[in-house]
Each structure stands twice: as C-alpha cells, then as structure tokens.
C-alpha cells in the first residue's frame, strides 16, 4: 500500500496529529465537535489507514445523527403522547406522501388508503385506533430537548391508602431495554422521614407501548411525598425521578 519509489508524487512521510479522543463519539453531536481526521495518505502503514477509516466512520455517523436530531427538533414541536398521536400520524403520513412524491412522479392509491381512515374531527373517528377521543383537560407534554427525549409514563397504585403521581419525567434510555428487567427505582423516600416505599416495579403496556410504573402501598403507609431515583441497567446516568404523594 505504499507509493512506488518511481512515483513522481512520492513525498516525505506525513506525521499525523495526536488524536483528539480515543473512542467513538456517542454524544450524537451534542459534545464539543472534534475535527475530522484527514483521509489516509497512501504512504501510511495499512493498519493506521484502516484505524483512521473506522474513526472516520464514527464521525460520519455522529455528524449524521446530529443533523437528524436538529431536523427532528425543528419538525416536532412536542414529544409524542397518546393524545398527540392523531395529529402527528396524520401530519407524518402527509409528509411521507410528499417525500414519496419527491422520489417519484406518479400518484397511486396510497392517498386513498390513507384517507380511508377517518380524521380526528370525523364522527366515525371513535372507531379508529388512530383517533382516540381527545381529553379536553389533557395537559400537553412538555417539549423535549433534542438530546433527552422524554418518555410517556403511566403510574398505577396497588393497595391502600390512595396516592397520586406527582412527577415522572423520564429520559428515554439510549440502548434498547426491557422495562421489567432493566429499569429499577431506588426506594421512594419520604420527605418527612416516614418508612420508604420499596415495592416499585416497571412494565410495558402491551396495548399502547407506554411505560407503566406500579407502586405497591401498604395500609399503614404514612401520608406525604415520596421520591426516588429511577435507573436503567448498563447506563451511567439515571432516567429520572419518580415522585408520588400518598394522600391522608
């Protein structure tokens, strides 16, 4: 893989600058940008050229993911929740058709197929899974930041006394997980020194795909606010904080 001695292009060996980092950039572009390594020159030993190619590959992906996240942040103003989905699916489907048109020139019966589903305002919409009845009192989900999309979470309480969810802002895990096997909560500790709640389990609602937190309460649980850190296996940072209030 070296330039032949006879080549008029033969130049002195180029010394590569010291590497800026020693591992792949997994920040999706959120971290400080690093300069791209130069293309491997012909005079380099092959293993150095190959290592450079792999680094280059990671940079290409990181750059692409960053661009995708910026585009997604511009496109999507709020995180998906079940209540947002009807409008989102409709607008996504329309964008899909527009993209297909950009790639193509002939229209087909796809639009008809899409239109066969009633819109949210249609009186028959209740029959369609795409358009569940909107709750006028529903709180809009908070807008996500591009690098920490939030998850929709449902909380259910088992036993007495009554309790309500106060806060469950969970960041989506970066790697695929199974909720029951990989998500755990620290004991929910009381702000007034009452006995902590340890029966906290996680699962996935098979109908909606929403993360479900189940909190088991015992009758003698003292009223008050309880909170605990929620962690996910093999991830260095917590998913978020679960806070509930046990009512008197």
């Amino acid at each position, binding site marked *: *893989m070296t*330039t*032949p001695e006879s080549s008029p292009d033969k130049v002195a060996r180029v010394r590569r600058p010291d590497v800026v980092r020693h591992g792949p950039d997994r920040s999706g572009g959120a971290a400080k940008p690093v300069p791209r390594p130069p*293309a491997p020159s*012909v005079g380099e030993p*092959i*293993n150095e050229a*190959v*290592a450079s*190619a*792999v680094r*280059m*590959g990671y*940079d*290409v*992906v990181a750059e*692409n*993911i960053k661009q*995708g996240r910026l585009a997604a942040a511009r496109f999507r103003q709020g995180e*998906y929740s*079940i209540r947002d*989905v*009807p409008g989102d*699916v409709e607008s*996504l*489907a329309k*964008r*899909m058709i527009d*993209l*297909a048109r*950009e*790639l*193509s*020139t*002939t*229209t*087909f*019966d*796809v639009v008809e*197929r*899409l239109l066969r*589903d009633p819109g949210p305002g249609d009186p028959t919409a209740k029959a369609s*899974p*795409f358009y*569940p009845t909107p709750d006028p009192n529903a709180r809009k989900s908070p807008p996500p930041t591009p690098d920490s999309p939030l998850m*929709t979470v449902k909380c259910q309480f088992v036993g007495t006394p009554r309790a309500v969810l106060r806060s469950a802002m969970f960041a*989506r*895990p*970066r*790697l*695929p*997980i199974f*909720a029951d096997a*990989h998500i755990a909560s620290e004991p929910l500790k009381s702000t007034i020194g009452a006995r902590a709640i340890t029966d906290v389990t996680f699962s*996935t609602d*098979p*109908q*909606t*795909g929403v993360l479900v937190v189940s909190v088991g309460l015992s009758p003698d649980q003292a009223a008050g606010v309880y909170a605990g850190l929620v962690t996910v*296996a093999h991830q260095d940072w917590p998913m978020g904080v679960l806070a509930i209030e046990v009512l008197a």
Partner: protein
Amino acid sequence: MTGAWPELEGLAPASAIEMSGVLSAYGAATRGAVQNYLVTDTPAPFLDDLLNDYPARGGKMMRPSICIANARVFGGRVEDAIQCAAAVELLHNGLLIHDDIQDASELRRGRPTLHALHGVPLALNAGDAMIFTALIPLIDSLRSLGPHVAARVLDVSMVMARQTAEGQALELGWRDLNQTDLGDADYFRMVLKKTAWMGLIWPAQLGLLIGSRGNADPQSVVRFGFFVGTAFQIEDDLRNLSDDPGYGKEINGDLYEAKRTLMLLHVRRACNARERTRLDIFLALERDQRSDDEVLWLAGLMKRYGSLAHAREIAGAMAGAAAHEFLLTYGRLPPSVDRSFVAGLIPWIFDRS
C-alpha cells in the same frame, strides 16, 4: 468465524448455512405478503407485468429478514412484522428499477434490466408505482401496531426516505459533475445514506419498534447498521471487480459506470501524475465511450497499487466495528436464533454466495 471478531465470542453468530435457512424462511413469508400487494383483479397493461418482474427474479431477501429478525429479537412475532417486511422489499425493488435507469445498468439478477426490456418511460413508471405500492403495506401495518408505534414507524421511514434520496443524489452528482477530489469520508457518507440506511438501518429500526412496541430507541441500531452496511457495500464493490461479481452482475460494471468506490479513490491518490491524467480523461467520458481496454487498464492499475487490498482491509475493519456495535446494542438481549442471525450478518458479508 468469531476468531476474526472477538466481540462475537459467546454470542453464537449464525453460520452461513443457518443464515441461509433464516433468509429462506423469512424470505418466503415476505414473498407471500409482497404478492398480496402486487396481484390485482384487473391487471393493468404495461404495468403489472413490469411490477412483478424484479420480485419474481429472486434476491437474497436480506432486508426483510433483518426487519423480521429484529422484531423477534425485541419480543415480537413474525406476523407482527410481515407487512413492514413486505414494504421494505417492495421499496427496495422500486428503487432498484430507478437505480438501474440512473446507472444505465444492463443486467439485474441475471437478466436484462427492466428499462433494457421495456424502455425507460415504462420502467420509470413501474418504479414509481412500486415505490407507492410499498407504502400500502406500511400503512396497513400501522392499523395493527397502534398509534404509539405507528407514529414512530412513520418517523423512521421518513428519515430513511430522505437519507436514501440524499445518498443517491450524492453518487449521481459526483459522476455527473465528474467530481474527483473525494476522500474516504465522502464515500462513507454516501454509503451511510445510499446503502446502509435503506438496506440495514431502516429494516432493523422497523423490527425494533414493532418488537419492543415502540419502547426501544431506533437510534440504537444506527451505528451497527452503518458499519455492517459499509462493509457490505465495500465487499460488493470488490466483488464487482472480481471474476465472480455476483449473481447477474457485469464484471467491472462499476468501472464502466465510473462508480466512486474506495478502490477508485485510493488508486487516484496512489497513481503517478501521468496515470492520474489518463484516469481523469477516462472518468470524464460517458459510459458508452469507456472502452474495454481502458477498463482493463484501470482494473490492472488498482491491483498494482494495492487498492483492492486497501479496500479489503477497510471492509474487515468496518466489520470489526460492526461486531463492537452489535455487542453494545444486542449483547444483553436474550440469545435466540434471530439474535444469532443479526450477529451472523457480519461474517456473512464475506461468506455469502
């Protein structure tokens, strides 16, 4: 095969025979679903025969199998993913028709390309129809997936459509403008968009979303898909220059098309000034002006300067990075035939026949 990729030790990547078995099973299921969308009660003249042509010629069925296997790896069933798998295969075939026109290719899967048989206008129309037909199983699948998963499936599909169009535009633009000052990073960027996204990343994302019921992060398979896709593309490019370029492909077809491959970028950097001038003249010609002698000269030049060995080394390194990414993304998931299939894609890139 795990000796080459220590990351795969203990993860039981499927052997070539096992890969073939999974591809055959999931491929047959997908073909059945595809046929449901291609067969009509009232066949349209000059269209339906053309639509059925490429799917009937066979193919590896790698893309739909990746979709189904990922769905199962993440907890789903074959029947949950079959419509999305059909969408993947239909879209792939539609894009092949367009690619063949844009590349002026003569052969596809052992037979003349669709535009060579029927002319460009009819082939183009069939490609358009196939792309739109691909949307139908995708939309059908949304009904059964539920709104949460449906929104995310459409989301990743839109990203794929855009990435694929950008990748194709890059490659065509480089050739049309005879751009020669390209580096390896430019090649990787083009492969990420043109090959990896539609061929590996999107099918895996669809499967992941279906299997996990929308809970797993589709971003988590991007790096694995990119590295497998890049190794796959480099190996494809190398095979094109060999005596056995693959089923139904022209020997040295990429040289006739002046395709910007790693080998071409390398040889242009490596050769001397006189050779570079001759190479640039060759690249500036139209496809039908490139003579057999000049193509053979360029193939020889690549061998002489070690461009093939260089590309082979990089393909191996990309496969190594893919093994590393596999471990990160799939390593903690329960062992299964499907996980072995996904792991087995890495050695299969080089072993496939």
